[in-house]
């Protein structure tokens, strides 16, 4: 009898190089355990994440998308994360409006020292996504 395969959600995480990506590295070197479901994409700053990237990630089959940057006031480029915050607010509302489960898209502030926070965010994200099953709404149907 074939065991039913457990759904392993795939998360695309856009992490700013200076904080969040460093934070995820810290989680790694500190041997903190977090689910292996993340495809990390390092970007220069959360402010450089175009909504295009987010929609594309969903189109390419992401079950969830995370945008993560430095805490307010800590952005390496001073203001990038403030811009990101505005933009992401709108993306979030838009996705919700067209009927994408709000649990599928998150933004977080993770500093280079917050390996533990990163671990927690990912674990929670995975737990949220599991009951939803695969994201097929925006997935490419070419």
């Amino acid at each position, binding site marked *: 009898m074939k065991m039913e395969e457990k759904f392993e959600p795939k998360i695309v995480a856009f992490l700013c190089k200076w904080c969040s990506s460093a934070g995820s590295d810290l989680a790694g070197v500190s041997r903190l355990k977090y689910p292996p479901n993340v495809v990390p994409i390092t970007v220069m700053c959360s402010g450089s994440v175009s909504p*295009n990237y987010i929609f594309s990630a969903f189109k390419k089959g992401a079950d969830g998308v995370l945008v993560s940057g430095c805490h307010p006031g800590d952005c390496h480029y001073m203001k990038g994360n403030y811009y990101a*915050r*505005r933009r992401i*607010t709108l993306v979030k*509302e*838009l996705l919700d*409006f*067209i009927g994408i489960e709000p649990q599928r898209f998150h933004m977080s502030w993770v500093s280079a020292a917050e390996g533990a926070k990163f671990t927690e965010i990912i674990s929670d994200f995975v737990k949220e996504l599991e009951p939803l099953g695969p994201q097929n709404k925006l997935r490419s149907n070419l």
Partner: protein
Amino acid sequence: MVTLEELKDNCRQILKEGKVKYIIGYKRKNGQYMTVPAFLDRIEEVDHLVWDPSCIYNLVRYLRDEKMRKEKEKEPDTRPVGVIVKGCDSRAVNILIQENYITRDDVYIIGVSCEKSGIVDEKKLTKKFAGKDIRKLDFAGNGKIQVTCGTKNSVVPAEEILADRCIECTIPTPIVFDVLFGEKTDREVPDPFKTIKELESFDTTRKWEFWKEEMDKCIRCYACRSVCPMCYCDECVADSISLAVKPDTTAEEKAHKIRWVEKSPVISENFNYHLIRAMHLAGRCVDCGECDRVCPVDIPLRYLNRKMEKESLDHFGYTAGMEPEKPTLVSCFREDDPEEFIL
């Protein structure tokens, strides 16, 4: 009320003085009650100018053509172009100025106030007057529109035939102009975001079902983008012009070029196009409703933009096109912008 004769006189005057290169306005569509855009460069042509509830177009769209034309000319005529704008259209001009696409000196703005009325939704009109020979529409003042069918006039409350956007419009008077016709009117709108209320109240599944069906219809004619005064990008992510494909471009090379949106009109690509467009219009859309009007398959595009407008207002207190000297919605921030949603 706007007096057409005064409007015409002004147009004749500025053409005569050579103050403007030409005037973008409205004229009757060949023997019909609806209008088409008119480009008036001779004084005699002003005779054909029309201002009535059939003036549906947002003529600000044509400032883009003017700019492109000017860029090609060796010795361009740098005089401003006259453009007739309604309340919503005037905010579109403001945004073009705000974004440094044009300067205030590039346009001579002839404002007309919609006052308590607005422009019609042709579908509502022809439904209401089905089988009747509609000849002419007129503003009848005080939120009424006169519809002439054959030789009979009937005066109806404007909201019965107005475009949805006009029913929800709170700024019917141009906010930027060189001359203004009609009264500055404040309008109490009980619920300016009524259109999207119902949809917002749906659960996730129903919302998705709704949009999936709508997006499935899109034929990617790009009329929505083409008619939009804000869609002035030379290269749109929905196009592939930026990707030069030469005879010696290999399959591998092509495969690695980023194409955000494929040309195929399938649901995923249609969504991608419309989501990108909605995002790019956030804080820029003035709800002139043109995309919604032109869509040949009746996709309610206005809903997407209206949603973005509502969120811009709710979260950031921002209304598009009000203050051209200030930064645009997404090119600024406040330190205390809401962030409850951030983990």
